[in-house]
């Protein structure tokens, strides 16, 4: 058989119905309209940003003379925050994993994913302050209430992020496991988790880092921590001290990010 010289006619692409074209155009128009509306509603004015950029530099400069005289106190605050974030995140991961699996359309049926997703939406949507107050009522002021509030809120986030990673996996290996007659749980343990582990680790350390930075809740529960100290320095215009705290936070976050990379590298 010699290669045939096919008349090079493109096969007609799957026909898009007039309706679907209309719908698409309408959606596009809607998106543009929303963007334009949001532009005016947000009073966007990039020109002004350029015009008065010198002000930014001026204000920014204040932060660049960090004043470390109180460093011991900052470090103590950082440790407090770390302690709270460790347990808040750990609990969220432990509880978030089952919820994440129940949220994943490729693992659970729709009548489970839908309500569980809405529940997780609520955990994220309901302000951490509300949870903090509720826990204060039970356990009083202090870091424990902070742990609980972070835990509940973070669970909603972890469940969402984890489940979206699960939904993006390759199904081949899962079928490989399923073919051996493994149980659903075993499919997850051997087929799903190895695939999503690097992402899960990244998400966990990202949320841990966010929780370390989170100040609002801890300000409410009187749990102390670096975030509160930072807010105070800002309120009293002690930008030099604020700068010093930022240096500590940046170093911590970078350290966590590097840690995250090293752990993930083992699983990629």
């Amino acid at each position, binding site marked *: 058989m010699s290669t045939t010289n096919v008349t090079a006619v493109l096969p007609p692409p799957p026909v898009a119905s007039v309706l679907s074209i209309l719908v698409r155009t309408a959606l596009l128009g809607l998106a543009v309209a929303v963007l334009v509306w949001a532009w005016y509603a947000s009073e966007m004015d990039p020109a002004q940003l350029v015009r008065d950029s010198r*002000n930014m530099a001026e204000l920014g400069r204040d932060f660049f003379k960090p004043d470390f005289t109180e460093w011991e106190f900052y470090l103590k605050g950082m440790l407090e925050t770390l302690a709270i974030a460790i347990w808040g995140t750990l609990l969220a991961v432990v509880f978030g994993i089952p919820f994440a699996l129940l949220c994943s359309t490729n693992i659970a049926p729709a009548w489970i994913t839908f309500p569980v997703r809405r529940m997780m939406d609520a955990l994220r949507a309901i302000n951490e302050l509300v949870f903090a107050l509720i826990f204060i009522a039970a356990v*009083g002021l202090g870091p424990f209430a902070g742990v609980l509030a972070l835990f509940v809120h973070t669970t909603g986030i972890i469940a969402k992020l984890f489940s979206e990673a699960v939904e993006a996996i390759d199904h081949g290996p899962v079928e490989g496991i399923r073919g051996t007659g493994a149980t659903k749980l075993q499919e997850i343990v051997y087929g799903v988790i190895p695939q999503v582990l690097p992402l899960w680790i990244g998400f966990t350390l990202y949320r841990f880092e966010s929780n370390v930075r989170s100040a609002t809740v801890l300000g409410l529960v009187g749990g102390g921590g670096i975030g509160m100290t930072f807010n105070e320095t800002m309120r009293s215009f002690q930008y030099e001290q604020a700068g010093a705290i930022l240096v500590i936070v940046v170093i911590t976050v970078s350290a966590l990010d590097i840690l995250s990379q090293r752990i993930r590298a083992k699983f990629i």
Partner: protein
Amino acid sequence: EDIKQLNFGIISTESSAALSKSFEPMLKDLEKAVGVPVKAYFAQDYAGVIEGMRFKKVDLAWYGNKSAMEAVDRAGGEVFVQTTKKDGSKGYYSLLLVNKSRTDLNEVKDVLDCSKGLNFGNGDANSTSGNLVPSYYVFAINNVNPSNCYKNVAVSNHEGNALAVAMGQVDFATNNTESMDRLAQSRPDDFAKIKEIWRSPLIPSDPLVWRKDLPSDVKAKIHSFFLGYGRLGTPEEVSRAREILKTTSDGWGPFVASSDAQLYPIRQLELFKSKLKIQNDEKLSADEKKSKTAEIDGKLADLSKLMETTPNM
């Protein structure tokens, strides 16, 4: 009820580093006087402390006037003493600030002119000195509604407002004497760009509030401790306590006796404010407005009566 530990809630408006350190000696003395450990919580948001008090998780708290009112109303709290300043004064003042370069704005009536299209930096809705006091003494009394009068009303905290005035982002803004003192120390350059065009009547200094249902023996111990602190005892003890008070928070004098009556003026302000809101509410019919205003006026009258019969001394 057996009190094993006194939970002391402190609303930390300034550096909690300094604040917690400054409270330590006094709390030690309190511990000795009451005979149970005292645990202090420095919270930035009073909601937690108030709810904590409501559910008996906080026994004792240092509040601002407005939050004390909430604690009394919803958390079973009671004002029992009032702090004083180092110089013995019993309060502070609310301010209106403008940029020094604004030679056209020099007194209250200059900013009440709605035709100028001014930008106003208001305080947070729950700030006594940043919002409540000027709302009543500047706007309500002069029958001006800021949201109709000014080109733009931006809401920020004291520091944000002061900075906005210094940078010329707003034409005038609210503030208080305490925040300005801090600004003068930390950012003299910005402070120098600002002038004061109005000062409110004295706003009473912060009260201490306890849980009404604390056992009476505990209450008695606490009460006598605070009132006696820096007053009773040997001259050495008194001067030591006064030294401690001077370095507690931003510098205190001895506590003075107080009661819920301290909050009457604040309540008045609040009522005036809600009256104003009802009057400006376009959704309400004239009748509704009338009945609601009448209700508030009644409460105001009751308050005035109370202020006469049981004034706070």
